[in-house]
């Protein structure tokens, strides 16, 4: 029987982002039959040379033509499966239009995801830091948030799987981070590829920032700057011997395995359409929203590795709910989805997908929404709660000498100094990436610089000189502050808010606690000292028209979303306090797993996708065990 006509799927996965793709590839390679449902357009799923090239060039062309080059600008804006968009943000909460999210406030939730094949990794930046050991025990260490159900040590194997799958470039030896302990990496561990070269501006800034003593709330800290591991292609590291991940059905474990032939070595995964395009990062400096050569990892690269004889993907299929026929019976009986033929029409047909095990991989907010719509998995009343993001406070200024930004990947260096410490009892921790793309994020530079220069009467050679002066000296610093889980920051649904297909739109309730506000103040104090040491003229300007800001002790602090949708179906130690267990299986159902950043009990200061991908390998292992024990 053709896989397409099968109805005896082992696993039905909703969503083809990195979490869905890692599962599909791992499960099919272990011989399981998988059905995937994907809300986005069929063209986005093409894997052949011509199809993938044509679709991708279409994205690129849309990006070039876009007035505002925001993360979702290259990708189809689907009325039948809308994606949230930062262009819809306003500080006038509550509001329900425009956009996909209904923003109840008091603050708008400023991060978005993308509903296309490959999901949000199509426009992610690709930073792949691990969480720190203390991130797993926030409650025990600092009396904040919750502990994870297992310690860092249990994650190491899965981190190595995730780093292999994404293809991480980085230098293990440089990664000195607070309280990381002795066994953070396995002995002798290296990443698949050498580090991505740090930018010229990193080096200029590090001259005066590396080793800088700063004082924060009467305590001294020494600033360090380290290269950032990331999912974009660089020179393969000859010492890296891991070939991949496979299921060992004897021991019932997922295992890393090495190249057997010593002559074989790690090959960077190039673009979908050409093995010689994207083997190295070419410095297009547009990773968010689109890497023109696909040197940056995206989830379609993983999906391409799946065993397609075992995989069926139905596109333009928007999941509506999971079927819980009988509450006492712990099984899910299907996924209801609406399939549309034409993206410009609201017509659809309704279907049910069936398998032995079901997995939601739609990204945190959508996963929670689907569970709420299904009245599933929620005996703990935790579904939708604890929505988190990194609240990104930016500071920017003009350097005395040119540092030549707007080149290379978005960020190649970070300051890990404030990722962990006693201060977490008082205020949030943060990581500070140095940004390579000038002031584009907060000010719309360099376009806005042109407007300013013309407004001050400049044209001709003077205009050109001014543009040269200002563009080459723009420095931007991030403070990605770890939001702590709070019950009130949550996703809900309401019959009043439906999309064009009649599906629920997520309603978001979001705020910043004093714990966060204190971290903005602390971060400003650190920023000030770094700017002073580097003779940077501070140009930071927060405005009352900014979408997200707080006022703390009379000062306004503006923050942005980091694109990190986290925490809406937390993992925990018991059915009373959480939605999923440490295998990421719902406590309430025997055949429903959730994957994605929604499972993370706390956020840490690292971008979440590497950790989430590691967890997804853990879920894959649990699913395989369950299938083989049935």
């Amino acid at each position, binding site marked *: 029987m053709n896989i397409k006509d099968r109805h005896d799927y082992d696993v039905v996965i909703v969503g083809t982002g990195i979490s869905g793709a890692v599962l599909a590839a791992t499960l099919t390679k272990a011989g399981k039959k998988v059905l995937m449902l994907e809300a986005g357009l069929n063209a986005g799923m093409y894997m052949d040379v011509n199809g993938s090239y044509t679709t991708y060039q279409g994205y*690129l*062309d849309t*990006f*070039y*033509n*876009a*007035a*505002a*080059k925001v993360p979702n600008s290259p990708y189809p804006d689907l009325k039948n499966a809308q994606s949230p968009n930062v262009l819809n943000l306003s500080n006038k909460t509550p509001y329900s239009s425009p956009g996909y999210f209904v923003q109840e406030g008091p603050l708008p939730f400023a991060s978005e995801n993308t509903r296309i094949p490959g999901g949000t990794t199509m426009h992610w930046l690709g930073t792949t830091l691990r969480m720190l050991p203390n991130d797993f025990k926030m409650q025990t260490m600092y009396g904040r948030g919750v502990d994870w159900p297992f310690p860092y040590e249990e994650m190491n194997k899965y981190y190595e799987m995730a780093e292999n799958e994404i293809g991480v470039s980085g230098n293990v030896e440089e990664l000195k981070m607070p309280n990381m302990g002795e066994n953070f990496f396995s002995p002798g561990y290296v990443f698949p590829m050498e580090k991505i*070269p*740090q*930018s*010229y501006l990193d*080096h200029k800034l590090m001259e005066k920032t590396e080793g800088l003593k700063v004082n924060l709330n009467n305590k001294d800290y020494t600033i360090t700057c380290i290269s950032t591991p990331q999912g974009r292609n*660089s020179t393969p590291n000859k010492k890296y011997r891991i070939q991949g991940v496979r299921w060992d059905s004897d021991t019932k474990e997922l295992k890393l395995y090495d190249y057997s032939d010593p002559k074989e070595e790690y090959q960077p995964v190039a673009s979908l359409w050409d093995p010689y395009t994207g083997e*190295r*990062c*070419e*410095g*297009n*400096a*547009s990773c968010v929203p*689109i890497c*023109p*050569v696909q040197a940056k990892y995206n989830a379609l690269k993983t999906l391409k590795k799946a065993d397609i004889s075992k995989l069926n993907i139905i596109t333009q299929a928007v999941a509506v709910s999971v079927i819980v026929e009988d509450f006492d019976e712990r099984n899910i009986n299907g996924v209801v989805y609406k399939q549309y033929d034409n993206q410009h029409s609201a017509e659809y047909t309704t279907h049910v997908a069936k398998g032995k095990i079901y997995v939601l991989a739609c990204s945190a907010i959508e996963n929670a929404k689907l569970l709420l719509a299904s009245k599933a998995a929620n005996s703990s009343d935790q579904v939708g709660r604890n929505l988190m993001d990194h609240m990104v406070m930016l500071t920017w200024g003009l350097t005395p000498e*040119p540092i*030549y*930004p*707007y*080149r*290379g*990947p978005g960020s*190649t260096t970070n300051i890990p100094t404030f990722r962990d410490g006693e201060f977490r009892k008082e205020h949030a921790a943060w990581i500070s990436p140095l940004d*390579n*793309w000038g002031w*584009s994020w907060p000010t*719309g530079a*360099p*376009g*806005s610089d*042109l*407007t300013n220069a*013309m407004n001050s*009467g400049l*044209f*001709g*050679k*003077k*205009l*050109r*000189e001014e*543009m*040269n002066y200002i*563009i*080459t000296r723009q420095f931007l610093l991030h403070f990605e502050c770890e939001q702590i889980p709070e019950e009130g920051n949550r996703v809900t649904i309401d019959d009043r808010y439906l999309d064009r297909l009649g599906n629920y739109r997520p309603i978001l309730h979001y705020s910043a606690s004093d714990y966060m506000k204190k971290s903005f103040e602390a971060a400003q104090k650190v920023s000030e000292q770094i700017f002073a040491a580097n003779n940077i003229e501070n140009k930071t300007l927060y405005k009352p028209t900014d979408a997200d800001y707080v006022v703390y002790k009379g000062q306004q602090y503006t923050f942005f979303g980091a694109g990190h949708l986290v925490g809406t179906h937390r993992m925990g130690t018991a059915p009373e306090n959480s939605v999923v267990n440490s295998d990421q299986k719902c406590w309430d159902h025997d055949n429903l797993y959730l994957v994605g950043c929604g499972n993370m009990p706390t956020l840490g200061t690292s971008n979440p996708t590497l950790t989430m991908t590691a967890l997804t390998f853990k879920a894959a292992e649990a699913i395989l065990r369950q299938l083989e024990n049935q």
Partner: protein
Amino acid sequence: MEEKDNLPLFSKISASLTGFSEMELWGTGMMETYYNYVMGKCGESSPTKLDLEYFFEKAKEIYLGDNNDENWIDTQIQTWIFPPTSYGGLAQLIITLWYTGNWGLGFNGSPISAQAYVQGLIWNAGETHPSGAKQPGFGSWNIPPINIKK
């Protein structure tokens, strides 16, 4: 009047307005496209066809007279051409078009084509390349840009 009659003038005035030489402007391959685009855009509403006619009339006075002194030309442009109140704001629209590929100022602008975005001179002015195009190659960001033009 022939459609292309004012192209040489458009080139001259574009150079004076942008600070890029005529050769650099022609090098983008966008000269005729922009000229035609501007001709097409000036119509009923501001900037009007008439604005455009007066604009070229003034440009003729400036460039086709006896005085070639750059400072004098600059003063003329500053007085007559550059102000946003002159010729329906045409000068700043033209500068923006060359620098960013956008028609429209600031957040009101959007690229007239993908190629226009890619050829934006703002990136050259900042000694870099348009984000998402003209990739400078692996590791290039690790050292100062090598094509420093002064």
